[in-house]
Structures are given as C-alpha cells and as structure tokens.
C-alpha cells in the first residue's frame, strides 16, 4: 500500500510541475502581448498602417509606419528567398547524395549548428564588411544578403531535419522503379518533407523579419518605401527602436503600436505555418 501511495505522490508532483511550467510560459507570452497591446493600441490607427512618415513624425506629427512594414516584408521575403535557394540544394545533398557516415555531411551539419548560435550583431558586422567589399551602400540588397546569412543556418538545418525523416524504404522504392537520385530527391524526398520544409521557411522568415541588429548597418533606414534594391529601407524593429528612443510619450506609444504590428505579423506567420502543415500532411507517409 505504501509503495502505491508514493508512486501516486510522485505522479502528482510531476504533473503539477509540468502544469506550473506550462502555465508560466503561457503567462509570459500573454504578459508581453498584453503590455504592448495596452501601451500601443491607443496609437494604432488606419493612418499608421497606410502612411509613410511625414515631416516631424518622430516628434509626434502625422504619418505612419508603412515604410517599415513594407520594408520588413521585402527584406525578410528577399532574404528567405536567397537563403532558400541555397538551403534546398544543401539539404538535398546532405540527405540523398552523401553516405551515412560522411565526414563532409557531419562537418556541414556541425558548422550550421555553430552558425545558428552566432548572435545577430555578428552577422550585422559581417554583412557590413561584406557590403563594403562588394562596394554596396546601405540598401535593401545589402540588408537582404545579411539577413539571408543570418537565417541560412536555421533554414538549412530545419529543411535538413525534415528531409532526414524520409524513410529509407521510400527512397529505395523510388530507386527500384528505375528513378535516379535527382528524380528521387525532387519527386519523393522533397514531397515527403514538404510540410516540414514549409514550416522551416516560415520560421526563418519570422526570425528574419524580427531581427534588428543585422539590419542596423546594412539596410539603413528610410522614410520612403524603397523602389529599388539599391535604396536604403526601413524595418519594423528599427522603427520601434527609434520611436522608443524619443522623449515624446505619443511617439513612444507608437513604438508599442509598431511592436504590436510586428507581433501580430509573426503570430500570423506561425499560425499560417501550422495550418499549412496540417493541410499538406495529406500525402505524407508516416
């Protein structure tokens, strides 16, 4: 009897521990969203979402953050596209073309893992140097390249992990029908890993759109929506940073409103990711 009680107590203890931590995490998230909503919602207006800053915007005058919204989307979108076009071939190579214990695959994965841990300001500094070497100025293009470097390891490892889940037998089934490795990679492995790939893309996009340190020296800032790759571009994190740094309460309130916009965008992206993954899971073989 005693033993039974002890096990029950143990069960109860761990259950409550898990519940507590879960609630704690949920509370943190809610608290953050709550604060930015409470501080920013009053300044959030249609005008703010649809206009670029007018003269004196950062002193509390008219205008909005359209430049930063569009800028962030362009920058993160372009960066994701660049990173994706490098990541897919790497992930396919790692999963279809290398042998099981290949040192090259091991080295690549380790390097990517290390790159995941490098702080984004370092990517910013690297991007800045790269920009000067390439003879670029602070611009949308320079920002895209830097953010692409920042999200490349995350994206690449994410895709790698989702392709790695492809069962060996499935790959063999394709080979046994006379398919080549590239046909198998494109038509079977990518298809089986597609939901995972997509969620990796959206995660990388979310990381790219929210990062400020990497774009600080490379994308610059501009009150206008850029019309070419060589123009500097505003981003939401920097817009928040600049507005928060002013002594004017109404501008600081706009900073929170901008933070709210950014959070909603990221929230939307992760919800979209979940939804798409669920929808696309249709053909995936478990």
């Amino acid at each position, binding site marked *: 009897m005693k033993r039974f009680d002890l096990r029950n107590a143990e069960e109860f203890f761990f259950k409550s521990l898990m519940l507590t931590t879960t609630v704690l995490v949920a509370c943190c998230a809610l608290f953050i969203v709550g604060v930015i909503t409470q501080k920013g919602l009053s300044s959030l207006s249609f005008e703010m979402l649809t206009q670029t800053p007018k003269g004196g915007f950062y002193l509390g005058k008219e205008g909005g953050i359209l430049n930063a919204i569009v800028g962030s989307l362009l920058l993160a979108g372009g960066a994701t596209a660049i990173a994706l076009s490098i990541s897919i071939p790497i992930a396919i190579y790692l999963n279809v073309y290398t042998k099981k214990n290949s040192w090259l695959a091991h080295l690549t994965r380790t390097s990517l893992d290390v790159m995941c841990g490098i702080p984004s300001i370092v990517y910013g500094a690297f991007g800045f140097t790269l920009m000067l070497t390439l003879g670029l100025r602070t611009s949308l293009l320079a920002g895209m390249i830097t953010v692409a470097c920042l999200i490349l390891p995350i994206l690449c490892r994410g895709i790698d992990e989702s392709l790695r889940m492809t069962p060996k037998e499935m790959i*063999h089934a*394709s080979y046994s*029908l006379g398919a*080549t490795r590239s046909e198998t990679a494109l038509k079977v492995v990518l298809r089986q890993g597609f939901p995972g790939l997509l969620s990796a893309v959206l995660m990388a996009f979310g990381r790219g759109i929210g990062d400020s340190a990497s774009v600080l020296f490379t994308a610059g800032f501009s009150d206008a929506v850029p019309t070419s790759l060589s123009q500097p571009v505003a981003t939401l994190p920097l817009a928040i940073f600049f507005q928060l740094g002013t002594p004017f309460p109404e501008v600081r309130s706009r900073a929170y409103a901008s933070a709210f916009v950014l959070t909603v965008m990221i929230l939307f992206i992760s919800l979209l990711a979940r939804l798409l993954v669920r929808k696309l899971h249709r053909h995936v*073989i478990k």
Partner: protein
Amino acid sequence: MQPPKPESRTHIQTKNLSVYYKNTLALNNISVEIPDRAITAIIGPSGCGKSTLLRSFNRMIDTFDETTVRGSVLVDGEDIFSSKVDVTRIRKKMGLLSQRPSPLPMSIFENVAYGPKIHGMRNRQQLEVLVQKNLQIAGLWDEVKDRLNESAASLSIGQQQRLCLARGLAVEPEIILADEPTSALDPISTRHIEGKLHELKDRYTIVIVTHLLRQARRLADYVVFMYLGELIECGPAAQVFEHPKEQRTQDHIKGVIS
C-alpha cells in the same frame, strides 16, 4: 486455358557471387540460376543472406554503404555489375515488393503513374489507361477507383502492398522481386498477394524471399535454400521439399534449425 509452357530458360544467373557489408560476409560464393516464368522461393533462417541475394539481382545493394560485390550477376546474359550498365535500366526490368509496403508520398494514382512518368510517359490518357490496368492486375482497382486522388497513406497495409505491386508492374518489368512481401500483412491480405503472384507467374519471373516454409510450399516452383550466407541446395520445389539431398535442408524443413 494457358498454352503449354515453353522450355524454361534461365533469366537471372549468379556466378561465384560474394557480398560483404563492410567486413561482414553476407553471401559466400553463390552460383544459382533463376528460371523465367516461374516462382522461385529463397528460403532459409533469418540473417542467412536472402535479402542480400535479392538486392544483388536489381543492384539495390549499391544503395547500401560500404558494400563489396565479387563475382557476377547475369540478367538475360548481361553482367549487370559491369561499369557500362545503366542501373536504372536494370531496375526498370524488375518490380520490387518489400517487407513493409512503402507507398510514395502522393496520391494513389500518382503512385502507380510515378514509374511510367519517370521513364518518359507524359500523355495523361495513356497514363490513366496504364494505371487502371495495373491496379486491376493487382486486384485493387475496385476498391480505389473512386478515390484515386486520395493519399496512398489512406489505404490499409494490405491495400498498400497491392498498390506497390501495381506500381512495380506499371514500369512493365520482366521480373518481380518480393522480399517477405506478406510479413506485415494479415492472413486475408496475404492470401490476396499470394494469389496475385500465382496468377502472374505465367508472364513474369518471380523471386520471393520467405522465411515461411508453408508459403514456399504453396507458391514455389523452384526453391533455393540458403544457410549462413551459403547456398545449400536448390532445385524444383517438389524435389527440395520431398527429397532434400543435404542434411541441413532436411533439418530446416523438419524444423530442427530455423
């Protein structure tokens, strides 16, 4: 119904075939001939190299890391391990059924159309005809004809195995290789697959690996008995089962070793 069989010819032949995984000797100096248009069963206790022998027939052994192949495998007299051979052409000659069905991550239709598409068939109508024909041969058509666009994952395991049969047949092979194709299936699905293999043996060379003696007795025209990587005995099923020459074959059939 069927015309009498012409004299059986050798379809697959191995000559002094040895296969190593890294340093493990999995096949030791195997020389065997597989006749066409008949079912040959490879039997023997597990780990004796049955799957490895089958993998050598369609060069799937190439896809395993660090294997060494010595000796030769001739298909229609052609040495398939020769460096000039296009491996995809060899594999196209053979349909493979594996231990667990492995459908591809696409619809039922696309699964069967996958092989023909890879080999250049683009015409939608032709594909539809081909898919229907092979699903019918595999005995799956009636069950799936209204849900061809559903995922292959939605089928039961038994149906998936028949889908894999249809998929293999769709590349118009001459040989069907089956590695314990019913070991994951329930008795009814097992009977289904066995029935199909029996029907197909007039048109295809069929090699089935099985550790079930009863299955071998039910299906096989020829039997290859292997033990610890060596070929112990082979010949017509009746002879091997009723009058085995080797002591080890007798022991295995009587269930002394397994």
